[in-house]
């Protein structure tokens, strides 16, 4: 048999040797191929798969389960559904029994009816007790078991409240039904209906809540569903349809139009347009040619192509995103800290309040009944779940929603801080601009046409690898100019190039080059000033020792930059640009994108220090949170990103888990930055609503239930309504969190030109 197994423990040649020896002891004829870089072993052997696994495990190199390769925490599958159906069955049972129990309890609500049925009262009561018992045992069994189990561990939960509440109601009524004589006269009244209906309502609440919670964690599930199931791999000139787990790094994979890219890789042959919205949130298809990277789970729109797999399994961009999102969803937000403290004391405190309510009404209230009702109502209205769910639910939905739009938020702290940002520092290159210079102006002197000048310069620059030279060449190609080969070429480091084009000596380069060659630049002085004011870099062209013209090259501003920056400013955020460029160039770019404050000539090593200085500047402004965000490329700007209160990294292709960043903008555009801040604000607002709701609910509900308003208004809450309210409160929290799923960012502010 032919096996291929993943062995994560394979680090070195020694390991490879040990593994080989171990397998050879098992089967001396085995053909073994150890692939160290990808930590895989391919074996052809007579032994069975389990023998192979045991042997490897014994040798200290356990096999990694293919399924475990992509660890996806907390995806709720069938168990959730089973629980839901179980709960619903228990609910229906309780709901149906509730009808006759309610009918039997009617006499208690209508004194005239009670008087006329006086003789039957005892029988009816015992009937109601017997009818409601199965509801407590079967439907409410999990509450009683849960309460008992947590009690043994010195814990108290929602189960405790429901169990004591319904248990006390039933027991009190049952004792009264059997021996009404032991209670004082005015104590008449029974609560079998309360016990049954509260259990029914809480069960219904749980079922609906679990439904809604399934939706909350939907984002990750959706991301995973977008993955391709199989890959068409070409091995030994054969096309094989392989399950995703069997694709290894280095495989050549074929993708046809309309299919999904199975793993991350680099295109070998063919061209196509790919919809990468799964990962980047950007729905406009990207054109890809050989040498470009492709991201797993993106959709191939137009052409067929082959690519070499570079990342598989848990290393793919999608797997990293899923893992990061799952981690962020479980993290805590500082805003929820108070609740964490409160919820630890909550349930016992409620039990204490209920006992106090009972005692107060027992001593000073109208009847024993009244005291029992107050006690039971306090127990069943209190909802620890609403408190506990308030923060995590919103965080889960908000972080998931952000991920679907190409914004990866590392944790709750990052999200909360992002919502408080007052200042955003944007690195220029790669953030505001594309980081690739492009040709902008061609200014020839009299005897040349634009095309002629550009053609000369481009041919001269053709063999140079300098980005500025490349920009000129690409500019010429874009203008459909025909470029021949230069007859001679020499690069002059730090200055430019010298080439022979059409038997003429051509120099292309900076002012230094021209000065060195003794070429007079006075004719260009106005042009030089103008270009500098626009943030452009002039490149001079000289032919046969005489100036021929200027060609300007500039880093181009990203499409969304102007609008995104305007939108941020309108949100009340001060936007600052940071760059290593000189003041003049920096100011020129800043003017174009509408930024007033520029930190120019900042060396890469000083960026972090600069952020720190800004932080101190903000702190000096006094009270409140004055947080600073830094947006950069994640590699050169890593220290500055780490120094900032929130570091935003512009994503590049498949590298999504940027360590230094609190937030990764996978698509690498500023629109995502605006989205990140908007979703953070929306999520935090949602958390605030939830916390406020849950706190207010308990803070008003519990005193109301305890009968605090009775002396004033003569009203006491019915325990049945209290049970319904409690069930509703946690559903409300989850539903409110789910509202975030339909969050849509505002369109970027249009800029009036």
């Amino acid at each position, binding site marked *: 048999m032919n096996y291929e197994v993943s062995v994560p423990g394979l680090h070195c040649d020694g390991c490879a040797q040990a593994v080989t020896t171990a397998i050879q002891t098992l089967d001396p004829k085995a053909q073994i191929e150890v692939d160290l870089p990808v930590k895989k072993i391919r074996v052809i052997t007579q032994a069975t798969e389990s023998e192979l696994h045991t042997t490897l495990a014994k040798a*200290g190199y356990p096999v990694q389960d293919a399924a475990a390769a992509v660890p996806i*925490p*907390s995806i*709720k599958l069938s*168990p*959730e559904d089973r*629980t839901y159906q*179980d*709960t619903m069955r228990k609910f229906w049972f309780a709901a149906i029994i509730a009808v006759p129990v309610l009918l039997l309890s009617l006499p208690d609500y209508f004194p005239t009816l009670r008087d006329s049925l006086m003789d039957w009262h005892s029988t009816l009561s015992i009937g109601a007790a017997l009818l409601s018992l199965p509801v407590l045992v079967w439907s409410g*069994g*999990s*509450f009683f*078991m*849960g*309460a*008992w*189990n*947590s*009690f*043994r*561990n*010195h*814990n*108290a*939960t*929602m*189960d405790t409240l429901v169990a004591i509440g319904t248990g006390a109601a039933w027991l009190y009524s049952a004792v009264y039904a059997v021996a009404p004589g032991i209670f004082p006269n005015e104590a008449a009244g029974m609560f079998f209906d309360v016990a049954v209906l509260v259990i029914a309502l809480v069960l219904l609440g*749980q079922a609906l809540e*679990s439904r809604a919670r399934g939706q909350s964690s939907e984002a990750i599930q959706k991301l995973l569903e977008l993955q391709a199931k199989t890959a068409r791999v070409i091995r030994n000139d054969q096309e094989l349809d392989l399950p995703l787990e069997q694709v290894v790094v280095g495989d050549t994979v074929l993708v046809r139009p309309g299919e999904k890219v199975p793993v991350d890789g680099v295109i070998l042959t063919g061209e196509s347009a790919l919809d990468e919205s799964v990962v980047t949130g950007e729905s406009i298809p990207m054109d890809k040619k050989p040498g470009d990277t492709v991201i797993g789970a993106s959709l191939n729109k137009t052409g067929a192509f082959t690519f070499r797999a570079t990342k598989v399994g848990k290393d793919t961009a999608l797997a990293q995103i899923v893992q990061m999102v*799952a*981690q*962020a*969803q*479980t*993290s*805590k937000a500082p805003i929820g800290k108070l*609740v*964490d403290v409160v*919820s*630890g*004391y*909550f*349930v*016992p405190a409620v*039990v*204490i309040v209920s*006992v*106090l309510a*009972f*005692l107060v009404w*027992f*001593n000073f209230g109208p009847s024993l009944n009244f005291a029992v009702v107050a006690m039971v109502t306090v127990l069943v209205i209190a909802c*620890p*779940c609403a*408190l*506990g*769910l308030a923060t*995590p639910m919103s965080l889960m939905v908000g972080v998931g929603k952000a991920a679907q739009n190409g914004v990866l938020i590392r*944790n709750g702290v990052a999200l909360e801080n992002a919502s408080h940002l007052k200042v955003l520092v944007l690195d220029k290159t790669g953030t505001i601009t594309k980081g690739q210079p492009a040709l902008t102006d061609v200014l020839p002197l009299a005897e040349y046409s634009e095309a002629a000048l550009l053609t000369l310069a481009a041919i001269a620059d053709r063999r140079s690898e300098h980005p500025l030279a490349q920009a000129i060449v690409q500019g010429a190609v874009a203008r459909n100019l025909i470029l021949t080969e230069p007859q001679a070429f020499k690069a002059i480091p730090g200055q430019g190039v010298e080439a022979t084009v059409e038997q003429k000596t051509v120099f292309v380069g900076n002012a230094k080059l021209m000065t060195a060659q003794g070429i007079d630049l006075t004719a260009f002085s106005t042009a030089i000033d103008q270009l500098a004011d626009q943030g452009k870099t002039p490149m001079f062209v000289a032919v046969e020792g005489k100036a021929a013209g200027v060609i300007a090259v500039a880093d181009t501003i990203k499409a969304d930059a102007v609008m995104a920056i305007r939108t941020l400013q309108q949100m009340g955020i001060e936007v600052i640009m940071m760059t290593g460029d000189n003041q003049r160039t920096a100011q020129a770019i800043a003017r174009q994108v509408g930024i007033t404050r520029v930190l120019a000539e900042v060396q890469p090593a000083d960026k972090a220090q600069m952020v720190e200085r800004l932080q101190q500047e903000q702190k000096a402004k006094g009270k409140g949170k004055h947080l600073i965000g830094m947006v950069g490329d994640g590699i050169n700007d890593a220290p500055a990103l780490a120094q900032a209160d929130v570091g935003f990294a512009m994503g590049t292709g498949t590298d999504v888990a940027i360590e230094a960043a609190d937030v990764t903008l996978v698509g690498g555009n500023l629109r995502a930055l605006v989205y990140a801040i908007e979703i953070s604000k929306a999520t935090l607002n949602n958390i605030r609503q939830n916390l406020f709701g849950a706190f207010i609910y308990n803070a008003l509900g519990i005193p109301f239930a305890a009968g605090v308003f009775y002396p004033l208004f003569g009203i006491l809450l019915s325990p049945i309504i209290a049970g319904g309210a409690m069930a509703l409160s946690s559903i409300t929290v989850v539903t409110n969190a789910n509202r975030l799923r339909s969050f849509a960012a505002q369109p970027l502010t249009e800029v009036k030109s």
Partner: protein
Amino acid sequence: MNTLQLIINGLGLTFILWIIWYFWLWKGESVEAKATQTGIQEVDITVQGGYRPAEIVVKVGQRVRLNFTRRESSACSEEIVFPDFGLRSHLPQNETISLEMTPSKPGEYEFVCGMNMLRGKLIAQ
């Protein structure tokens, strides 16, 4: 106030004091994790109205594996969350779910149920 009232009030107040002691003042015992041959510190935890044991002492910087087995149907304990490690897992009834983590710094790492009611902690020393 008659005798019955005195008894009931006395019982009620005693009950309150007992609640305070039983739920708030009571301290559980902590269990020290034992390392297996492969160097993983492993502890089995029963989830039943709480975590038994609820306090686990481990060595810093060494892999920890906690095997959670949920032995109840109550919805309260159906999820386990380690906020510091970014782990959240569903705990199906009567199944053992293993979670692994490596505490890199000494300190206390809390783990809670999905609704933050049941708590336990990992103490790294």
